[in-house]
């Protein structure tokens, strides 16, 4: 389980390694090291991507092709994307790298006692609080063997050259040489339910509540907006549940027969059943507090609970909407502490 130039196990990496392991990988490492339950895994560092791209660039230019694209020229971008993605997908990994990844994968499967992994892109620009383009890269769930894993790693790399990703970079004039992609390989959580949570209120910005959204099955249905999740608002400190909206969760994302994910209909009697118990909500709240304390700022977290009821975090990143707003203090310390009562007695017009 030793880390190397191209492999970084979660236990060995943190946010400080973002340039090498990407935002998602750094965050998962950070959580693991903070003692938060995260499915075990490793990161295929950007060095592997660089090595792979070097070989590819030698055959024909890649980055120069993207750099010369005109922002907004969708036709040119689409054509270029199609060509580059096909090239990435078709190329073999350098033999040494492929061997190292396969060994790491075997080691992970042994440790987890299961063969299934998730392969998730972890861009170096992704998940930073100043440039949230989360979701532009791909995630592959229920990848069942080493060969498929390698294939999905290339697919993640290729997603860096999707039409959306290229457009995003061209629009913002992000230099192509600065762009690299790490890939997370992580044990799959057989999610009974999954979703997201914010360590503040998305509607009022209140930092004293935790907002939790979740639905049956894998979190992809919630993140992708394919199902209206159950929603709870809890006092971060008190645990009081002030909002309890149980939705009609008509579909859930489940493992597909041959690997991957499929959307299946939820049986009538489960649709309106809360996907989390109050005890699980309480546990999520505690995790939210720990993660927030660890980072020192409000967090946007992805979670899953497996069939045994065990909670795992899949992602945590700084909340970006409210933290960028500077709210004035509710009140300031006064020279005469009694003067505060004038806010009540002095008239409120």
């Amino acid at each position, binding site marked *: 389980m030793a880390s190397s130039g191209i492999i970084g196990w979660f236990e060995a990496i943190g946010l400080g390694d973002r340039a090498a392991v990407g935002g998602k990988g750094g965050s998962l490492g950070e959580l693991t090291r903070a003692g938060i339950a995260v499915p075990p895994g490793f990161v295929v560092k950007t060095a592997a991507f660089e090595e792979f791209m070097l070989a590819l660039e030698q055959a024909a230019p890649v980055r120069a092709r993207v750099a010369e694209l005109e922002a907004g020229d969708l036709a040119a971008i689409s054509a270029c994307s199609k060509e580059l993605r096909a090239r990435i997908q078709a190329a073999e990994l350098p033999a040494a790298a492929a061997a190292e990844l396969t060994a790491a994968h075997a080691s992970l499967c042994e440790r987890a006692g299961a063969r299934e992994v998730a392969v998730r892109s972890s861009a170096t620009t992704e998940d930073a609080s100043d440039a949230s383009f989360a979701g532009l890269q791909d995630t592959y769930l229920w990848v069942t063997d080493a060969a498929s894993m390698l294939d999905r790693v290339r697919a993640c790399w290729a997603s860096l050259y999707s039409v959306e990703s290229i457009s995003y970079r061209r629009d913002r004039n992000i230099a192509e040489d600065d762009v690299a992609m790490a890939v997370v390989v992580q044990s799959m959580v057989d999610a009974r339910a999954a979703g997201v949570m914010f360590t503040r209120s998305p509607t009022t910005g*209140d930092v004293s509540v935790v907002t939790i959204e979740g639905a049956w099955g894998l979190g992809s249905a919630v993140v992708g907006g394919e199902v209206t999740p159950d929603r709870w608002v809890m006092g971060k400190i008190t645990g009081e549940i002030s909002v309890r909206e149980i939705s009609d969760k008509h579909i859930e994302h489940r493992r597909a027969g041959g690997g991957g994910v499929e959307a299946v209909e939820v049986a009538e009697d489960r649709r309106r059943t809360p996907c989390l118990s109050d005890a699980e909500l309480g546990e999520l709240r505690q995790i939210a507090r720990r993660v927030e304390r660890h980072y020192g700022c409000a967090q946007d977290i992805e979670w899953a609970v497996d069939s045994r009821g065990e909670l795992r975090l899949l992602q945590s990143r700084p909340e970006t909407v409210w933290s960028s707003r500077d709210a004035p*203090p509710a009140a300031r*310390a006064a020279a005469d*502490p009694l003067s*505060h009562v004038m806010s009540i007695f002095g008239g409120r017009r």
Partner: protein
Amino acid sequence: MPIPTASREFPRPSSLKVVPGTEGAQAAYPYYMQFTAGDDSRFWFYNSMHFPEPMSAFDMVTAEAAYCALGAANTRVHCLPTTLGIDYRILNGRVYIGGNGVTDPAEIARRTEEFKQRAFYYYENWERLYAQWKVKMLALIREAQQLPKVSLPEFEPLEHVRAGRGIASNHYLLETYQKTLEGYFRMWHHHFEFLLLGYGAYMTFFAFCKKAFPEISDQTVARMVAGMDAEIFRPDEEVRRLARRAVELKVHAHFVEGRTAPEVIASLERGGDPGREWLEELKTSRDPWFNINVGDGFYHYHRSWNDDLSMPFAGIPGYIKLVQAGETLERPVEKLQAERRQLIADYRELLSSDEERGAYDQMITLAHRVFPYVEGHKFYCEHWYTNLFFNKIREFGELLAQHGFFANTEDVFQLTHFELESAIVDLMTSWSTGSAPRGPQHWPAKVAERRAALKEWARQDTAPALGPVPDIIDDPAIVMLWGITRESLDAWLSAGDGSNASTEIRGFAASSGVAEGPARVVRSVEEISRLRPGDILVCQVTNPTWAPIFQKIAAAVSDIGGSMSHAAIVAREYGLPAVVGTGSATSRIKDGQRIRVDGGRGVVTILQ
């Protein structure tokens, strides 16, 4: 006066009619409590929080004495900048009240200067003044206890003659009555000496919390401030203590669910030394802690636990079961205190800056300073003193009944306090002249008329508010004491639009938790015995002295009350889901309907 638009107006006072056939009873109330034409231009609301049932002629003394003292404190003593006192009127037995705001900026500025000199002095010297208050209050209670028993001998006792007292017993009737009445008016001044200032300091912290943490629940703020050993918890703690003693003394078998208090006591008296020992324990609990009303103390029939032991005795069997199940009934005060400290520290940590934390510290410090009064005064004022007062009046009722004025003692409460004084003078006169008193010809018919009117008025719904809706409610007294805001008035207005069809009723989230069960709509204290385990209590106003039954019900819902109300505090203590201040639960929920109470959200749902 701007002309209010139709949609923004409640019925005007002049459009409300005295219920036909009750005109005589309505006319009995003093002239200054009757609506007049000029009242149409003002906003009034029905004070169902304090006076949820029609007020008998005598009981109006509570409104009178309380508003007299509240107004004095606000208008003249502390000089609240934006408000004077509260005006009150009575119609069909219902007490309507209206604030008396100050709007002229120059006058507000002038009053602000006065206020700071006065109120700030109180805040700065709170502990000393409150310690002094308790001494004054206990002295007042002692004075009331020491008033002579109301009686008229046939002949003046020989020892009075030999002592050369020179003043006959009939005179002492008047003196005792006037002292009784005077003491009651005085008590209400004590009651309001700190009240608005105390609530104001609490509300300052409350408003800060709502601004800093927009979604914080009212009950969380209340928990940060609430005291752990307030007098209000004590009566119920005594009931728990008695339950524990019953088990220790092995006399618990005498406490059979459904047995009346006198039956239990008789059975204990036959139960040898342990039974008698328990009865001694009961005695120590009774004085003073059972001087607590089964209501808010504002009605003569809100008898104290001492007058009627059925309430505390109703709680004992349940507590005995808990003791036998190995539960400790003592409130873990130290643990609760540690939890409160942690809660305060945790919220403090969430604040965004040291500057904000500084303000938080200043406000919560003041809130903690004032809170012992906010929580403690009720026991001394509304409970202990009020019991003494009504029981003293009862002695007059008994004497007058003996002389044929009334068919029974309780009829005395159908006279205003002015009328009662006239009846007493009538009796004094007849005792001295040796002629028959006139009262027996005069009062029985009036009493019958008024009793019939009260019954009729109780059957009628009354408008929650009257007159034009003000644009804003800027009266700290009304906002703090009654929780009335523009939003709540709009809700009342729309409730009158036939939107009652909804099965959802909203109120204040007073104590979190969700419970389902059959609704027991309890309109008066006498109906408490109808409550069965698992029922949901639906009432106009809950009272902390109902605590012993809180262990047996599943949840509580009230028409009136804020999350700061004592009932809310006690419900939280019990972990009993509660929604208060719904405005209309007792009229919209039918007895026996299945309902769901979500105390964390403040929502009651009618399920069938």
